[in-house]
């Protein structure tokens, strides 16, 4: 199978199809549009002290801004470096996080809550499922290039 990412002496070499570039380029907008009321939002900003709502609220007050800023930086990094032939490790890490975040959102929208879902291949699966698989393959490929 074609490798989309490969480690070279210059960094992580990128070989994406035009379709893959288009899909990755659409991820920042997908993530920006996540509604705070949808299940994905809880997964992206999980409870840290499940038995102590007060401590949890204090933790969130402290970290929510940091988390949003970090994710915004990752999305900009992806958008800015999307046409590049080679990525630094830091840029590749930002790609990994944006892809991972998008997968969590898609899986939450598909109602995936148990392991084993990827074995149930269906011919007419929803577009979110195809996207989830494709992003998983790209992330796997990028991780193996980084390791």
């Amino acid at each position: 199978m074609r490798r989309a990412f490969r480690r070279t002496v210059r960094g992580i070499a990128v070989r994406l199809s035009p379709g893959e570039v288009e899909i990755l380029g659409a991820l920042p907008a997908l993530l920006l549009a996540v509604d705070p009321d949808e299940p994905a939002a809880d997964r992206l900003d999980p409870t840290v002290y499940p038995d102590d709502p007060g401590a949890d609220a204090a933790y969130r007050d402290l970290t929510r801004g940091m988390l949003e800023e970090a994710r915004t930086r990752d999305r900009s990094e992806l958008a800015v470096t999307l046409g590049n032939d080679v990525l630094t490790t830091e840029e590749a890490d930002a790609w990994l996080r944006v892809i991972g975040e998008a997968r969590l959102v898609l899986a939450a929208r598909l109602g995936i809550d148990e392991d084993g879902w990827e074995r149930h291949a269906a011919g007419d699966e929803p577009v979110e499922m195809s996207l989830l698989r494709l992003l998983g393959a790209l992330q796997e490929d990028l991780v193996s290039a980084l390791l």
Partner: protein
Amino acid sequence: MTITATTAPDRVDVPDTDEVVHTDRPWNVVVWNDPVNLMSYVVYVFRKLFGHSPEHATRLMLQVHHEGRAIVASEPLEKAEMDCHRLHHHGLWATLERT
């Protein structure tokens, strides 16, 4: 994580206790299984954030996968909260509990 079927519990059980709270006692950073993150990605994140060897990171990932959770660090509260934040930034499901 993907591949094998296990279901993660959906909450952390912290025992009720009337003991005096020792704030200087370390806190456990707990990572929970989820059906979406790739096994290889979870290993990569453990290695990157905690400097674990490939073997240790893989063992922890498999523990999360098979047992539903694993303690990835025990450390002072401030550091534990920061590690929790970094895990969330990487899309992993992490909580804190007293040791």
